[in-house]
Every structure is written in C-alpha cells, then in structure tokens.
C-alpha cells in the first residue's frame, strides 16, 4: 500500500512537471502558429482563471452565490491604476500596489459580507449584484466635483509591471532577440496563477475547506458541529476577493487603461458562468471553464464572420451579437442538460443528484 502510494505521488509529480513544461512552451507554440494576438488571449485566459478561482471559493466551496464579484476586480484595478499612473502623478511599484489592491479588495469583501451574512440563495445573489452596481456607479461618477476616478473616460497610461530596470510593458531585448510584452506578461501571470491555484488547493483540503463544504451542505448542522458560521463566511468572501483584487491589478497593468465599462454586470455573469460551466467546487473544472469561456469568444470572433461570408455571401448576424447569443444559449442548455458542470467534483455532483431526488 505504501509502495503504491509512493508510486502515485511520483506519477502525480511527473504529471505536474509535464504540465509545467507544456504551459511554459505553450505561448511560443501558439505565438508562432497564430500570432501574438492569440498569446494575448492566453494572458487574458490566465487572468480569468485567477478570477474564476476566486469566485469559486465563494460559490463553489462555500455555496454563497455572488453576482457582484467583478467589484473586487474593479477595486484591485483602480487601486493599481490610481497609484501607478500620471492621473495623480503617483508611481508606486507593483509589489506595493498589487498587494494593496488585494488588501482593499479583501476589505470590500468583508464590508459586503458583513451585512449579507443572514441571506442565502437568490437574495444573496441580488444583493451582491446591487453591491457590484453601486461600486460601478460610484466609479463612473466620482470625477466631479473632486476628480478621483476620472469617470467614464477611465484612467490612461497606467504603469506596466517593472522588475528592477526591466519593464514588462516594453519588448525585452536579449541576445539580439526581441521578446514581445505579451510573452513577458504570460510568464508573470503564469507564476501568479500557479500561486492562486496552490492557495485554493491548500484551502480546499484544509480545516477551512471542510468547514466551507459543511456550510454549503447544511449550515445548521455545520453550526452544531462547532463551526463559526459568521467567520467562515466572511473568510470565503475575503479570500475570494483577494484573488479578484490581484487579478484586477494585473489587468490594469497589462491593459494600461481601465474604465468603468470593464466592470459591468455582464463580466460578473461571465465569471460565474466559467465557474458553473466548468464545475463548481472543482479546481481543474473551474480552470477548464475559464479557459473555454475566455478562448471560445475570441475563436468565435474569428470564425463567425468568415463562415457567414462563405455561406451567405454577406454578414447576417454581427459576430459580437452571435457570440453573446451563443453564450446565453449555452448557459441555458448547460443548466438543463448537465447542471453540475463539465468537470464537477464528485461531492458536488452527489449534492446535485441528491437535490433532484428530494
């Protein structure tokens, strides 16, 4: 048994190493085959993985439905942008602004969590949705009389991440080779994504993770077992918000420009869809969902137009329109056919089956 266990660990280690190598060379393959814009899509996929994993802590682990998750992303992004752009003339380095953004996001997480502790299910969903909208409305309007967020115009010329003298925003010249920023950001995001995955992984198999499962399955029973429901819920909100805040800061640095438009309800729904479609509560499933939903739209953008031109000779449906239509239909069909997601955790699947019977 012990030998089998050892063998298992070795196999797992090998699998992880292989995965690491694939992830390391993936952008080079994609970049040389399809061009740099697809590497950019990969960068965004990594950002979405971080976001989806953050939301997964709240929705998947703890079972609290949050429709305003994008607010934490906004908090992280605006913290980075305000402290690293010509807007206020402050240029703090990323290793201060990103943790600060994460901290603020966590504070907002607790701020949101505290009043809604008593709520469950759809009520919680609607209140978090309202919270997200409030943040967006404030960000959109806090440009007068004191200009804080620069309103709907957003913030421009945000500093890229800089390591010593190396800026990730400019092509890096090594030995006559020029490496495009999209590659530099890819590896930076990859490291952080791995950290977030590890955090989620460790959390899931910890005392806290088990407490969340208990809370999700039956909060009264969980309380009876001595779990402090209030603290454990707040912890879920705070840790979920943490990943959202980090991803937000990264987004601001990568994009160099942010505006309230990037933080609408649709984005929250998109991230929720990643978690749900992938498989709530299962880390690999959520990663799969995030990759699918961030890559598929780009793919469709490239496909829908030409296909229509080829078959009908003209554009019948605007690609953006068709993309959203498919997205909506996919959400409905997925819930009707496989509500537990593409790659659910066994436990979560059992809960779904159970609820259907009862």
């Amino acid at each position: 048994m012990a030998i089998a266990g050892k063998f298992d660990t070795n196999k797992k280690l090998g699998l992880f190493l292989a995965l690491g190598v694939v992830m390391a060379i993936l952008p080079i393959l994609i970049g040389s085959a399809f061009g740099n814009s697809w590497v950019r899509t990969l960068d965004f996929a990594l950002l979405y993985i971080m976001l989806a994993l953050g939301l997964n802590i709240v929705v998947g682990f703890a079972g609290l439905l949050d429709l305003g998750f994008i607010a934490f992303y906004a908090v992280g992004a605006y913290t980075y942008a305000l402290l690293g752009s010509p807007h206020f003339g402050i240029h703090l380095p990323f290793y201060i602004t990103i943790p600060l953004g994460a901290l603020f996001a966590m504070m907002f997480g607790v701020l949101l969590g505290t009043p809604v502790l008593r709520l469950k299910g759809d009520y919680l969903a609607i209140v978090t949705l309202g919270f997200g909208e409030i943040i967006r409305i404030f960000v959109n309007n806090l440009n007068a009389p004191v200009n804080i967020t620069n309103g709907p115009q957003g913030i421009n010329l945000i500093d890229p991440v800089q390591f010593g003298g190396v800026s990730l925003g400019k092509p890096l010249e090594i030995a006559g080779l020029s490496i495009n920023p999209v590659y530099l950001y890819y590896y930076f995001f990859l490291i952080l994504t791995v950290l977030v995955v590890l955090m989620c992984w460790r959390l899931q198999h910890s005392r806290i993770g088990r407490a969340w499962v208990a809370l999700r399955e039956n909060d009264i029973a969980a309380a009876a077992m001595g779990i402090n429901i209030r603290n454990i819920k707040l912890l879920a909100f705070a840790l979920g918000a943490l990943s959202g805040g980090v991803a937000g800061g990264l987004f601001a640095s990568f994009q160099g420009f942010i505006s309230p438009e990037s933080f609408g309800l649709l984005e929250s729904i998109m991230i929720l869809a990643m978690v749900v479609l992938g498989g709530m509560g299962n880390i690999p499933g959520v990663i799969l969902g995030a990759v699918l939903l961030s890559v598929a739209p780009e793919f469709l953008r490239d496909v829908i137009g030409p296909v229509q031109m080829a078959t009908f000779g003209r554009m019948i449906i605007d690609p953006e329109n068709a993309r959203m239509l498919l997205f909506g239909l996919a959400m409905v069909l997925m819930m009707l056919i496989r509500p537990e997601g593409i790659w659910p955790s066994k436990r979560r699947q059992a809960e779904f089956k159970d609820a259907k019977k009862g």
Partner: protein
Amino acid sequence: MDIFLQQILNGLVLGSIYALIALGYTMVYGIMGLINFAHGEVVMVGAMVTITVISTLMGAGIALPGPLLVLIGLMVAIPACMLLGFTIERVAYRPLRGAPRLAPLITAIGLSIVLQQLAILIWGRNYISFPQILSHDTISIMGASITELQLIIVVLCLAIMGGLLLMVEKTKLGRAMRATSQNPAVAGLMGVNVNTVISATFMIGSGLGAIAGVMVATNYDQAHYYMGFLIGLKAFTAAVLGGIGNLAGAVAGGILLGIIESLGAGYIGGLTGGFLGSHYQDIFAFMVLILVLIFRPSGLMGEKVADRA
C-alpha cells in the same frame, strides 16, 4: 415646497410603473419561490412590440387618434408577452423544478442574455423613440406639474392592480393560485392543476409587464434593448421592499420606492453639499434593497422569512 411636491408626483408615476412590474416578480416568487430574472426582458419586449406596431400602422398611412394606436399596439404586445412568459416558464423553469436553486437562476440569466441579443437582432442597438402621438399637456397641482399622460399612467396602474387583487381574492383561478403558493403538493391533491396555475401566473405577470413596458416607453419617449435590466432590478427591489410573495406589498413597495428614488435624486445634491449629484439616482434602489434585507428581510408586509430564500 413645490419641489417637494413635484418630486412626490414624479415618484408616484415612476413608482406605479415599478409596482406593476413588481407584481410579476412577486406572483412568480409567491408560487414557485424563484426570482424570474428574465421578467425585465419581457417588459422590454412589450415596449418594443408596441412601438413596432404603432410605427407600422403609421407607416401604412392609417390615421388614427394617438391613444387608439397605443391601444392597438398593446393588444398585440400583451398576447405576445404572455406567450413569451409561457415559453420562458416551459423552457427554462419547468424542467428544473426541484433542482438546486442556482440552476433556474442561471438559466434565467442566460435567457435574459438571449432575449436581449434577439432584441438587438430585431430592433438594433440604438434607442428607439416612441412616436409623438400622445399629448404632453401638463396639469399643474399646487405649483407642481404632471402631464396628462403621467396622470393616466398612475390611474391605469392603480386600476389594473386593483383588478388583479380582486381576481386573486374572488375568482377560482385566484383561489387556485393562493392554494398553490401555500403548498403546491397539497393543492394538487385538492384537484388544482398546478402546472396550469403556474403557466397562468407567468402569463398574467408577463401581460402586466407588457403594459408597464409601454408606460416606461411613453414616459421616457424611448425604448432600448437594455431597458429591462435596470427597471427589472428596481421592480424586484420594490417587491422585496413590500414583502416578496405579497401582492399588496408589491404595490406599496413599488410606489414607496419610486418616491424614495425621486426624493433622493432631488435632494442628494443639497444634502451632500454638491458632492453627489442626481446621477446617483440609481444607487437608492440598491441601498433600499440592501437595507431592507438587513433590517427587515420579510419586507414591509411580508409574512415569510427570508431564510426560505
């Protein structure tokens, strides 16, 4: 003082429209215990269909008085929305009865997106203006003014809501609805066809939504594929404020929310020394929602506990 009265009047108009939409949410919630997220889109479709019918008639050179044109538009929009509501329930909710609560919420969001995108396909992304066929004469009451149209909106809303309450209290269908909301299984044993009742509820709610959509479009002189989202959310807030599942509560909550919103928008500038302006109007609904859910989750008139949700 006249500003105060003016804001009250504006709030009353806005609030009675909210109330009409809130009834759709609260009826469905009362019977099935779920939030029909796609209800806002039904409201939007109602407005769009009416505008299309009116402009088609006008384009065909049929000269009829304005109110009659709107009435014809409504006669098309109401059945269309009822059909839509019926379909929504059949496609998105019925197969998921008994599934975890998250599932119908997500289908509803998905359906909302689908309906919005279909609306873009049919009516485009731009604002569509409501044909100028209704009089905009104003009546002044003690220094405040209200248009005739707005007065009609308020009166019509109150009449419709009264009719609905009467129907729920007095008719056989109403009794079946009340029975189903108390306990669907037992209602079924008593010979109530639960599926028919649920379909009827969705259809009635959607019909009211269509009327409300037209009212919104006439009041703001325009309609838009995205108009359903915010107004739906506010109407939902109204339903929660009044106590979700309670019809009279939805009416009271709607009117109260409308008044809170317009008073808030009117006075926030002065109260915060100009720091926050009237463009923060939309925040009030969300603030009210959060405050109600924290301090009185059962709403003003609700008897149910929020824990159920």
